[in-house]
């Protein structure tokens, strides 16, 4: 009987120890992750945000300014992820700004990436919207009398 009690106590102690270790790892892991997040904080903004064309299907034109910032100095690129084309790269910078002549018939997504990396550190979008959302031809509106 006494032996059984001791075994249970050891088992409980083992479980408590595991819990403590897990809790420690969880907390430290989180702290480590948070530190990493802070270290890798990236921001990407575009202004103005929206491109308006008259009719659906038309190409939309907009002069925009991209602004980005990262907590670490490195080589970064601004990438149009819709067309998968690099717009501009910066060497050994932690922030940047770029004026861009946007021209597209559809909304485009943009991302800040480390050079030669496919991971998006931050992303933004230029939505394309239309006044007349029907792509149908307004033929009947053209009339002389």
């Amino acid at each position, binding site marked *: 009987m006494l032996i059984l009690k001791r075994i249970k106590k050891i088992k409980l102690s083992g479980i408590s120890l595991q819990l403590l270790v897990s809790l420690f790892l969880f907390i430290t892991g989180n702290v480590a992750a948070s530190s990493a997040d802070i270290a890798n904080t990236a921001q990407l903004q575009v202004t103005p945000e*929206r491109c308006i064309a008259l009719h659906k299907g038309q190409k939309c034109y907009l002069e925009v300014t991209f602004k980005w910032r990262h907590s670490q100095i490195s080589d970064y690129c601004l990438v149009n992820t819709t067309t998968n084309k690099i717009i501009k790269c910066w060497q050994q910078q932690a922030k940047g700004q770029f004026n861009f002549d946007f021209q597209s018939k559809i909304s485009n997504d943009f991302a800040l990436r480390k050079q030669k990396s496919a991971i998006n550190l931050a992303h933004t979008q230029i939505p394309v919207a239309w006044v007349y959302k*029907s792509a*149908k031809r307004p033929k009947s509106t053209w009339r002389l*009398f």
Partner: protein
Amino acid sequence: MTSSKKITKLLMAGLLGLFVSSNVLSADITHTLRNNSEEKATTGNYFELGLGIAAGVGPSLTEDNDGWAAAYLVINGSYNWNGLFIEKYGESGDPILLGYNAYESDNWSLDLVMGPKFGGLHSDEADDKFQLLDDRNSSTMFGGRLTGYLGDNVVQFSLKHDISGNSHGTSASALLGRNWQVRNWNFHGLVGLQFFDSRINDYYVGISENEALRSQYTEYSPGSNINFTAEAGVTYPITENWVFRSTARFRTLSDADMDSPIFETTRSTAMSLGTSLTYVF
């Protein structure tokens, strides 16, 4: 004169303006060109309200000078259902139009259309100078409208006849238009010819023998006429709902209309410039 009578007179002057502009002066808004749509399909559905201001020179039934300026309400819209459509373009000063798309191909479209045309002129409400004239009522024009989309150009031919029994007249037109997109600005240009037969002219600007006997006007029976019309305009989407438009119009005026004694001021040409701001729902 009481103030209410003055207001009535002003309103009637406006209606008379519509009558003249519809019959002789107007060049309607070319929404297809403005929209610069690349798609080929049936009529789009939309509705918009707005305000506009316009100024120009032209003949007048009531004023002794040829200049004018006005603010106006813009009510534009169209709705299509299984080929049947209804359209209203207040910016052109035209009334509502009903139609049916009888034929549609990649490049051509034929509509049967019907709608009131030409404003009325009623002796009991109008300016004193028209008191002794017969009433002129609006015509209900029914006919066909053929529109072709040839590359960047749009051509449109129209032939209509009055089925109301008022003017019994026939009108026809041929238009050639084109649009250009420069960034988000949509420019359009248009030239065309308009034909009005002698019945339309006679009903609206002619003076019958009986009218001449009881009024100060001399008898007048105009023939048919052809007017040249041209238009240039720009449309810009300010936001997803607000649209800016500006339009310049020019047209020639024929002697068949201008020789009518009903006009207070006559001209050989008419020109206007209008700007509007509309909200698209």
